[in-house]
Each structure stands twice: as C-alpha cells, then as structure tokens.
C-alpha cells in the first residue's frame, strides 16, 4: 500500500479547544447519571436481598431489564419514545442523564447486593446480640464494611458509564464524540480528531482510576 498519509499533529492539537467544550457535558451526564444510579442501586440492591417476594420481584425485574438491554436503545427510547407518551419533548441532556442513571443503577444494584451479602453472618449476629436493632446493625456494622468492599466495582462501573456517554452523540448532546464529529465535518481530519477524542476519554478515566485507588488505599488502612 502506498503510504503517503502524514499524521497532522498540528491539526490534532488545533482540535483540542473545540473538543474540550464537550467535556463538561460528558462529565455532567456521567456523574449526574451515576449519582442517581447510585441511589437507585442502594434502593434496588437492598430490595433484591429482601425475603419478601413483593419487594424482591420488582427489583429483580428492574435489574434484569436494564442490564439486559443496550444503553443505546435505552437512551433512544427515552429521547424519542417517551415524548410520545408524555406529549412533550425531553431535553437531550436530561435524557442522557436518565439513561445513565437507570442503566448504571441496575449494575450498581447488583454491586450493592454482592457487597452486603459478602459480609460474614457473624457480623450481623454480633450486632444483634449486643442489642442493636436490625436497622442499627445495618447502618453501623454491615453498610460501612460492605461499602468499602464495593469501591473497586463502583469505580469499574463509573468508567463504563463514562464511556457509555459517547453513544449519546446520536441524540445530539454536545459531548466529546459529538464535538469530534462536528469538527471533522468541516476539517475531515478523522484520524487526528478521533485520536484526540480517545485521549481525552483516557485522561478522564485514568484520573478516576487514580482517585479510586487512593480511596481504596485509605479504606484499607486498619482493616
């Protein structure tokens, strides 16, 4: 093959200021969605553990549905489908945050369930035998230990969700990928621009990994 193509570093760097405008949206959708997803995850993760069928079954249904369907389909459903039900349009940013929330919420439910169930039965028995109520036992003994064990998996889910937001270019949110597409439409430097887009994602996810590692390290002290 005749290799005459030259990687244009100048074009690559020139795209950065424009691409960076997408980062606030990427971060807002990711972390907004993950924050709501975390609350959903705690609620449904605990319902999932319940011995009462009428609490457990809805949780299982939610988890299976949102874990078993693509996040792209979920966001398309929310952005294009739901307005037909609601009778009014949904803001693309809101749709993106909602999609990440319900999707990560399903995975985080399982992380919460796994974390809580990983705590030895003796911990609960020790709490109850001291006269603590079931609620107090959960709050002071089970949850703090379970949460610590959940941190690596939560970090993993955070990274997955950040990358998932790249799909939301399809609903026109001006996040990183969308910015890249818009830029390429006028300059045609697909190679350079997508490389920069990839590096910016990497910068975000590596920063998150680093922060989580610090958290884990601090959490492990005195275990």
């Amino acid at each position, binding site marked *: 093959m005749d290799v005459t193509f030259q990687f244009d570093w100048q074009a690559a760097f020139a795209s950065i200021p424009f691409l960076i405008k997408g980062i606030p949206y990427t971060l807002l959708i990711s972390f907004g969605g993950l924050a709501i997803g975390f609350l959903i995850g705690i609620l449904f993760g605990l319902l999932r553990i319940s011995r009462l069928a009428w609490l457990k079954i809805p949780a299982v249904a939610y988890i299976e549905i949102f874990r078993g369907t693509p996040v792209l389909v979920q966001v398309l459903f929310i952005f294009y489908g739901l307005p037909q039900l609601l009778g009014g349009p949904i803001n693309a940013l809101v749709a993106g945050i909602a999609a990440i929330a319900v999707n990560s919420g399903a995975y985080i439910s399982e992380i919460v369930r796994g974390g809580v169930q990983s705590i*030895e039965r003796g911990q609960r*028995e*020790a709490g109850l*035998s*001291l*006269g603590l109520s079931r609620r107090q036992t959960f709050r002071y003994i089970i949850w*703090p*230990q379970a949460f610590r064990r959940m941190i690596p998996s939560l970090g993993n889910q955070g990274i997955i969700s950040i990358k998932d937001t790249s799909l939301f270019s399809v609903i026109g949110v001006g996040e990183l990928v969308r910015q890249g597409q818009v830029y390429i439409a006028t300059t045609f430097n697909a190679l350079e621009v997508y490389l920069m887009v990839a590096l910016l994602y990497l910068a975000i996810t590596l920063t998150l990994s680093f922060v989580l590692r610090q958290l884990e390290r601090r959490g492990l002290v*005195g*275990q």
Partner: protein
Amino acid sequence: MTHEKSTSGSDPIVRMDKVNKHFGSLHVLKDIDLSVSPGEVVVIIGASGSGKSTLIRCINGLEEFQQGYLEVDGSQLVPHGKASAALQKIRTEVGMVFQQFNLFPHLSVLDNVTLAPMKVRGWSREDAIETAERLLERVGISDQAAKHPGQLSGGQQQRVALARALAMEPRLMLFDEPTSALDPEMIGEVLDAMRELAKEGMTMLIVTHEMGFAREVADRVIFIHKGEITEEGPPEEVFDSPRNERTQSFLSRVLKH
C-alpha cells in the same frame, strides 16, 4: 473454686420448658428443660453437631425454636420468633461471645466496645469510653484500644469481644466455644478472663470443649447428645461417675488426650 452459689429463692434467669427445634426434617433440640439461676455457671458439653451451640443461640434469639416455653430475665421468647420488644430486651440484657470473635473490623478496639452502650443504652460518649477503658484494662488490653481488630492476636481479639459484651452490663453471658478458634498458646488468657468473670458472680452459660476448665469453673455440667440433655449435675459427678453410657463414651474420648 471459691464461688458464691446461686442464692436460692431468686427466680431463674433462664427457663426452658420442653423446647424443640427442627432444621427441616432434622430434630436439633428435643424437649430441652433447663433452668439457670442468677450467679450460676453452667457448662454445656457434647460432641460437635449435638445441638449445644444451637441451644444457647436460642436464648438470645439468634436461632428460633418451634415448640416449648423459653423465658429469659422475665421476658418470654415465643416460638417461630419474629423481631419483638421482648427479644430486643433480652438481647440488651444478654451478652454473647462467639467462636469466631466477630469483632467489627472497620472500628477501633475502643469503638467496638463503646458502640452498643451508646446506641442501645444511650450513654454519652464519655461514659461509654470510661467503661470501655475500665473493661479493656480488666481483660489486659488497655494499651491496644486505638488499634483495629485485625492488628491483634486471636486471644486479644477474643478478650476485646468479652469486653464488648460486658460493656452492656449484661445479666447473663453466653459463650459459644470461645476458645475453639484459638491457637493453643492463647487459650489460657481467654479462660483466665472468663474465670475472673465467674468469680465475680456473673451468670454464665458456656459451650466448650475445655474439660479441665469446665470441671474447675462450672457449678453444673450438662451433657447433650443428639439434641437431648442426657446427663446433668455437678462437675465431679458428671466427669468422675457419669451414669449415662453416652456421657461415658464421650468423656472417655475427650479426656484420653
């Protein structure tokens, strides 16, 4: 053993009347009759799987039973026990030491001991700390209060667990094989702490395989075989002249070495 015998005439702190427990088709406890008076030290012996741990776990509701009458410190526990005010009260007044210590690994030794008095009894932090320090001193670990359980030896952990239970000022202490998970060289320090407690007049119900300790500390020894109390009496009687052949064969096996 110079130890105050239970004062006659006072109500028993534990009363079990024909208590039965099943695990599915397994009949784990059969018509258990047991009464423990205040100040009494009762040791329960028997082979593993005989139901002795299950028996004491019924007393603070960690296991439920299916039939019979069970009263602890004046509160009645009902069969198929659900969470109830009576159960809550019993757990507040009954302390327990577990085979696996079950200390809270995310809390310091001091916080392990102060948690329940503050959250359940509503003590101030200062009061709880004062009591905790006194108890940790008594079990010989006052210099470890700031450490986390994982930094302590098994024997130290079990002594913290004892202090944690005592901090609630229980009327009855349950011990579920407290030395079975310990390395041999650490068993003595835990038994010493329990001996002290017995001397002070604490009512104790102990499941153990330490026969020498049982003989020395117990006011009464109970032998359980397949969920049934088959022999009961003062330690000299049970150990030296057991009447039941099950007891005889069990003792000949455990006392041989």
